[in-house]
């Protein structure tokens, strides 16, 4: 007992300390390095020259406003679509649920730029709608801030959906069952269910906000001026690392404000209900047909429409087959899977540490995660090169750098998602385990992880999809030769006809969806297992 007691504390310290150290090395250090570079001017002098132009001009303020509106709009739309779907999946039983879930997740697999292209093929001046109706109906709206909001909102709603479903499965259905005795379903949903999942929904909304404000491809394509353009120009047109990083500060500040606002509104409200998830209350009982119709409508509009528009533009299956590269596909699937697994492991530890932190610094930890996540991918990529490209280290120049790029970019978002999941697990579970003599590690593996397994699955899927589609950082650090599918796609897009572009896009989407479809077919329904976890 004494021997076991000696290692009880150090196991937690070692595990969490290692996760924090890796987070600092992989995620924080590249950003901090680049921030240091931002204080060096193009003439080599240290100073604030790169910051002189920020926030001052009307143009910069307009760009900030556009960026904030784009982020807020996309986040709101994604939540409005995704959150109800997540509740639907968690609280009703209808046929082909697994298959329909895959269909609903599909837009997240489509890279935002490709999604923008697809919507142009539909709503552009000579797109499908213009051809059907004989004149241009939608192009003015397509090429606008509203069009960009819809494109990104539709692309990112699966994040809200997966997060909400994972959170709702943690809510004890007996609360809702009791409420249904005295209140109608709508009231129960609004006054019981939704407040209990709100923090996770807010975390997902924040993730979508950050993804939207740091997105460049869609605003560029749809001719919307946003602040990411300034960062991009500083790199692409001016080759000035310091100025580019300084340009990213307003973006990081916007993310910080959004994160602080989310903390203020949601706070540290207790989410947990009872010891086990239990079965969900049948809030949508008797509505199976409507549920299926709604789901099919969303799939048709948000997933099938853009994919079919791309396929129509591709024209022939031969083009799609020719666009594929076995090596690139294998690399992408393997590296994304390794990256997602490592990200999830570290994210679970960091999320646990954040959720169980008792100091006031826990809110600060959230904000640090958000700011790091908001850092433009090129800033991260250049920072990684600066840190890892050292003579004799042997890591730079290999495929490991691609995985490191994934970790650097996506550990923060997964840690945020899993922190929200861990907060749903009562600490009394661990306290009871400790009283029974279980060490921290045993308690973490045998009690905490099983309680958040749906959240872990959702986090893994999100990490996989984000890693699979990542380009900005990986193109800077990927080794020579056939690397990942997005790199192949974008290097070939450069001078290809739109049919080839569409074929490459369809290939990337199909390859990205395939492992998720396999996982979806394997995974069983959670309700009985969740009940047995109690």
């Amino acid at each position, binding site marked *: 007992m004494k021997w076991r007691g000696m290692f009880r504390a150090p196991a937690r310290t070692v595990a969490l300390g290692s996760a924090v150290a890796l987070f600092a090395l992989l995620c924080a250090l590249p950003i901090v390095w680049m921030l240091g570079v931002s204080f060096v001017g193009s003439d080599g002098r240290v100073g604030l020259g790169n910051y002189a132009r920020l926030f001052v001009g009307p143009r910069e303020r307009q760009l900030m406003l556009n960026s904030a509106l784009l982020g807020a709009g996309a986040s709101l739309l994604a939540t409005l679509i995704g959150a109800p779907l997540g509740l639907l999946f968690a609280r009703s039983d209808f046929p082909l649920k697994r298959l329909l879930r895959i269909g609903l997740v599909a837009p997240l697999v489509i890279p935002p*730029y490709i999604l923008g292209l697809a919507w142009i093929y539909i709503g552009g*001046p*000579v797109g499908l709608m213009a051809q059907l109706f004989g004149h241009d109906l939608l192009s003015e709206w397509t090429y606008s801030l509203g069009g960009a909001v819809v494109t990104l909102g539709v692309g990112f709603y699966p994040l809200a959906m997966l997060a909400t479903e994972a959170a709702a499965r943690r809510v004890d259905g007996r609360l809702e069952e009791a409420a249904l005795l005295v209140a109608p379903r709508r009231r129960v949903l609004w006054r019981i269910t939704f407040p209990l999942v709100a923090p996770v929904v807010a975390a997902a909304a924040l993730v979508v906000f950050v993804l939207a404000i740091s997105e460049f491809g869609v605003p*560029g*394509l749809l*001719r919307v*001026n946003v602040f990411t353009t300034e960062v*991009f*120009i500083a*790199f*692409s*047109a*001016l*080759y000035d*690392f310091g100025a580019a990083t300084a340009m990213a500060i307003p973006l990081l500040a916007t993310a910080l404000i959004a994160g602080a606002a989310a903390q203020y509104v949601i706070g540290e409200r207790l989410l947990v209900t009872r010891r086990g998830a239990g079965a969900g209350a049948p809030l949508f009982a008797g509505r199976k047909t409507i549920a299926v119709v709604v789901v099919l409508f969303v799939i048709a509009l948000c997933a099938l429409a853009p994919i079919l528009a791309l396929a129509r533009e591709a024209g022939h299956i031969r083009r799609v087959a020719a666009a594929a*590269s076995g*090596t*690139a596909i*294998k*690399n992408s*699937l*393997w590296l994304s*899977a*390794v990256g997602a697994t490592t990200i999830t492991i570290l994210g679970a530890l960091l999320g646990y540490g954040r959720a169980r932190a008792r100091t006031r610094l826990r809110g600060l930890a959230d904000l640090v995660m958000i700011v790091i996540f908001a850092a433009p991918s*090129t800033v991260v*990529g*250049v920072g990684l*090169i600066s840190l890892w*490209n050292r*003579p004799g280290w042997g890591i*730079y120049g*290999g*495929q490991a750098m691609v995985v490191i790029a994934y970790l650097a970019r996506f550990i923060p978002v997964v840690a945020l998602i899993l922190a929200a999941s861990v907060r749903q697990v009562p600490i009394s579970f661990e306290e009871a385990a400790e009283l029974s003599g279980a060490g921290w590690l045993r308690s973490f593996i045998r009690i905490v992880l099983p309680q958040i*397994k*749906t959240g*872990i*699955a959702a986090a893994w899927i999100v990490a996989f999809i984000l890693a699979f589609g990542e*380009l900005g950082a990986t*193109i*800077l650090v*990927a*080794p*020579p*030769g*056939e*690397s990942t599918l997005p*790199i192949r796609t*974008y*290097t*070939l*897009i*450069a*001078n290809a*006809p739109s049919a080839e572009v569409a074929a490459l896009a369809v290939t990337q989407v199909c390859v990205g969806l395939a492992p998720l479809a*396999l*996982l979806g077919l*394997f*995974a*069983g329904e959670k309700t009985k*297992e969740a009940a047995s976890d109690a």
Partner: protein
Amino acid sequence: MNSKVFTRICALLAIGLMTDFSACGGRGATGGAGPDSKTDEVTIYVSTDRVFSEPILRAYEQKTGVKVNAVYDTEETKSTGLANRLLAEKNNPQADVFWSNEPVRTLVLKSRGALAPYKSPGADGIPPAFKDPEGYWTGFSARIRVIVYNTNLVKGADAPKSIYDLADPKWKGQIAIADPRFGSTSFHVAALYAELGDEKADEFFRKLKANGVKIAPGNSVVRDLVMKGEVKMGLTDTDDVNVALEDKQPVAMALPDRDGMGAPLMPNMVSLVAGAPRAGAGKKLIDYLLSPEVERDLAKSDAVQIPLRGGVEGPKNIPPINSFKPMTLDYGRAAGRVEDVVKRLQPILDL
């Protein structure tokens, strides 16, 4: 996630681990396996479109047995690209050779000390105007900045002859250019400022703005907009237009200002990277890229790039170099104007 699912995921990962992971061992231009010896390999960063450059590098591999580790670039508006990678790697270079498809990137890298001088014997026959006097870059196989127009919508005498035609009010809302802050368009606008002077160039772009010019994310998008009839004409590169011509689309190209300032010529540029880990192999690859054989291959391919040396057969659809008036350019001076021009154009074109 139940234990069965977990086991299946582990099985999938294990299968992936055991599968011959060819990307780890093989780093060829084609991604295939090759010889392991470091003396038999060379690393090149390529900004010229992959669809055109990859066959050239594959041919070099087959001819010499040297493994070519190639890193390709995206369109300039999709990612910040290889020039930034080269600058970031300057303290511990990974690449031996840099092959660019336009002058700006190369000249920025030269100014930042990322290139090394090498005067290749393969450059014999290339006119001096396309070679750096200090040897930091050598030009070969060029593209031209042209006006692309839709032949169904623009007929006969209305066909554009000068870039000033884009400012003609009869084409209001029917013209497009790629974002002038990036790529070959940034070179083109910088060249215009160097040629016309600031006042005249500012005036030209103000007129374009008043004429409702659409700013597209890239040259290929300009081509697609014209091809689909969303606009009637635009500025782009010869290889972009050729893609549409080969696809039998209703487009044609006009070499602008034949009787005026001439059309801007953009050569490919190849350079040795400063501190290249395999400088000897890099020099040999540069010699090959500057050979008449490569100019001929690039001319025959869909790149339709114009040989700079005489006596090499040019591409179909494109007039030979001695048949039109190219803009007289100091590439260094034009590239040096890019940063300043980008800042001037932002308020003029509301970028």
